[in-house]
Structure formats: structure tokens, C-alpha cells
């Protein structure tokens, strides 16, 4: 198995990072490119960009932002938010993304996953699942589907998803640890890698979820202070989590 991955997640809107990130020393704290470069230099294994306005307001993710980030960093980039078609995915990949995430559009029309896998390869197709109490929610958590997250993950993988990005709405933002039960249930049910998201507050939380998932998404924990990612990597090394040597 490849090494466990740490993946900072940047929520963007209109080309800028939203949510409180205001680090000293960055040229422009809200600028996605400087923040991406900062995380890349601090040892991020990949980066995820989610356009948080896209699905709700029907806006396409900003290709220009992806392009600027791709010109600056040389680690894998995953981009999502409002991907509804193969054309959307091709546009983002052409701009420099390595993978795209689909969420609501795939729930509405699951065949989209197959179309994407054929067009760009499974390795570039990430199906994002937002779950509350084990059930999938759509449209950035605002819509109930009644579907079991585990079953949807299995179907998504069977249709050609190359990775599952699993967010626990229950754990998200609590800083009290990842939803290990949900993450384990999904990881046990699929053969593709699982990226766990939601709930990281300490290095111990991250270490625990990396026992069950292949990667941990990091968001609010990184907003604490500028060097949090670097520190976190050191703390995880002390906990014997085998991260890559990013030098």
C-alpha cells in the first residue's frame, strides 16, 4: 500500500479561499495560490479544492484558479464543486487538475460516473459522499437522499470511481475526531482508496483515521496557525504514522 496521505482542503468561492485563513507571512491570506504553495512546501501530499458556491448557485468552478495553482505547485490537485458533465471534468483537467470530484450530479444521474471513468480514467474520478447518520445527503448537505452511504460508495466504485471522498457531516467542524465507524464501514466495503473528511482536531485523530482510510482531508485544523501542517507531520511521525519524506 502507498503511504498514508495528508490532504489540505481549500474551500474556494470566486477564486478565493473562504473560511478563516489569515496567516502571517502569506502575500494574500485569501489567495488560493499562495495558500496552496504554502501547504505544498509544508509537505501536503495532495490538495483538494472545493468550489463551495458551485452546486448551490450553479456556477462553474473557476478554471483560471486551477490553472494558476497548477502552475505553482507540483503535487496532485483534486478539484470539485459543480461538476455535472464530462465536459466540466475535461475543462478542469485541461486547466491542470489531476482528479475531479462529483457529488450531487452523480446522485441525480449515477451513469455520469461511468461516463467520466471512460472519458478520463478512473484514477481521475473521485466520488464525494456527504453522510449524516450513515445516510447520503446531496447539494452540499442540504438535500436528503435516504440512501445508505456504504451502498452508494459500493455503487460508485462499481461504476468506475477511482476514489471515495467521504465526509461525515456529523463530525465535520466538531474537531472531535473523524467518524471512524462510518469511515471503516465504507473502507471495508470498497476496494478503491478512501479519503476521510470531517472532524480532525488533533494529530491523534488523524493517526486514528489513517488506520482505516488511505488519506485524511484536513481543513479547519490547518487554520489554527501558519505552521500547523508542518507540526502535524512531526506529531504524526512521533505517533509512528509512516508519512513520506517531503524534502
Amino acid at each position, binding site marked *: 500500500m502507498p503511504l498514508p496521505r495528508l490532504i489540505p482542503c481549500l474551500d474556494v468561492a470566486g477564486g478565493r479561499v473562504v473560511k478563516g485563513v489569515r496567516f502571517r507571512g502569506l502575500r494574500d491570506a485569501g489567495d488560493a495560490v499562495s495558500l496552496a504553495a504554502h501547504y505544498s512546501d509544508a509537505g501536503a501530499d495532495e490538495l483538494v479544492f472545493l468550489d463551495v458556491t458551485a452546486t448551490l448557485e450553479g456556477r462553474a468552478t473557476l478554471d483560471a484558479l486551477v490553472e494558476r495553482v497548477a502552475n505553482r505547485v507540483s503535487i496532485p490537485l483534486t478539484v470539485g464543486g459543480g461538476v455535472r458533465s464530462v465536459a466540466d471534468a475535461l475543462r478542469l483537467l485541461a486547466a491542470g487538475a489531476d482528479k475531479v470530484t462529483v457529488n450531487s450530479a452523480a446522485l441525480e444521474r449515477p451513469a455520469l460516473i461511468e461516463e467520466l471513468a471512460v472519458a478520463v480514467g478512473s484514477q481521475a474520478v473521485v466520488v464525494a459522499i456527504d453522510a449524516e447518520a450513515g445516510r447520503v445527503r446531496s447539494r452540499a448537505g442540504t438535500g436528503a437522499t435516504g440512501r445508505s452511504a456504504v451502498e452508494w460508495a459500493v455503487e460508485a466504485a462499481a461504476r468506475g470511481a*477511482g476514489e471515495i471522498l467521504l465526509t461525515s457531516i456529523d463530525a465535520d467542524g466538531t474537531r472531535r475526531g473523524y467518524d471512524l465507524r462510518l469511515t471503516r464501514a465504507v473502507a471495508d466495503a470498497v476496494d478503491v482508496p478512501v479519503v476521510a473528511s470531517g472532524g480532525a482536531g488533533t494529530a491523534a485523530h488523524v493517526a486514528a483515521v489513517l488506520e482505516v482510510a488511505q488519506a485524511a482531508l484536513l481543513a479547519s485544523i490547518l487554520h489554527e496557525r501558519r505552521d500547523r501542517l508542518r507540526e502535524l507531520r512531526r506529531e504524526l511521525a512521533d505517533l509512528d504514522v509512516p508519512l513520506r519524506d517531503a524534502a
Partner: protein
Amino acid sequence: MRVAICDYGAGNVRSVSTALRRLGAQLVDDAEAADLAVLPGVGSARSAMSALREQGLDAVLRKRVAERRPVLGICLGLQLALEETEEDGGVRGLGLLPGRAARLRSGRVPRMGWSRVEPIGDAFYFAHSYAVETPAATAYAEGIVAEARSGSFVGVQFHPEKSGAAGARYLERCLFPG
């Protein structure tokens, strides 16, 4: 160094060209005349192979290797260089490298993430569902062929253009060998 990236519509051309340009390579279109030809590639073997043929790049690459001029294959570019791959029900490759590609049968597939490559000693980023079986392997990651060489062809299973500082060092050695 003049480098041509084979753009046949199935590649991560953009990230490869960004990485090479950063290292001072001069990108040119003519894969025949360039000092180094790079064969990138993601996605499916069958469509990639037919696109290569349509553009006559298969002949260009074979000629380069016959003349012992450098070619670098990345990811699918490595697998297309083989004699065959079992992907898409079996596809004949370029035959620049002995061996075949077979579906990964253990672990999570796609195999995605960073893995330490020996004897290079750095971790690189991998994203693949097929792995190479070849007598020409020169480096491994967890028992999987990470690099193979035959004559003037070098192929890597990982993505040096997405492997941060280690990847840049690797590409730099390809650009400025010795």
C-alpha cells in the same frame, strides 16, 4: 535541452510541460528532432494507442529508440512502450521495452499515493491500475516496477511531474544526465 512532449490527446501534457519548463527545458513540437521525447499518458490504453498511431508518433518513437536517442515514458507512457498490455481486453504496445502490463490484483485499485522507490530512495506519486512485468526493471516500489530501461528508453510508473521536489530532481536527471 529541447524537449518534445507527445501530445496525442490522452495525456497530462500540461503538468509535464509545466514541470519541464520550470527546470529550464525548451519545449518544442517536433518529437523527431528534439533532444528528448516525453510520452506522457493517463486514461485508457486502447484509445491512447490508436491516437498515437493516428498521429504517426508510434513510428517516430520507434525510430528514436532505434537511433538510441532518449525517450521518457510516464505512467501510461511506460505501459504503452511494452509489447502488450492486458488493459481493454488486450492492446499491442510500441515494443520499445520487453514485457507486458497486467491489472493490479492486490491492494486497493487504483493504486494511488506516494510510495518509496528503491534504489532511488525518494517517494514518488503513483496513480495506476495496471503494473508492468518486465525483465528491464531498474527500480521498484513495494515490489511494483517503478522504473524500467531498455536502450535509450526510460519509463516510470510514477508521476515525476506530480512528485514535488523528488519529482523535479528525477526530471532534472533526465534532462541533464551524468
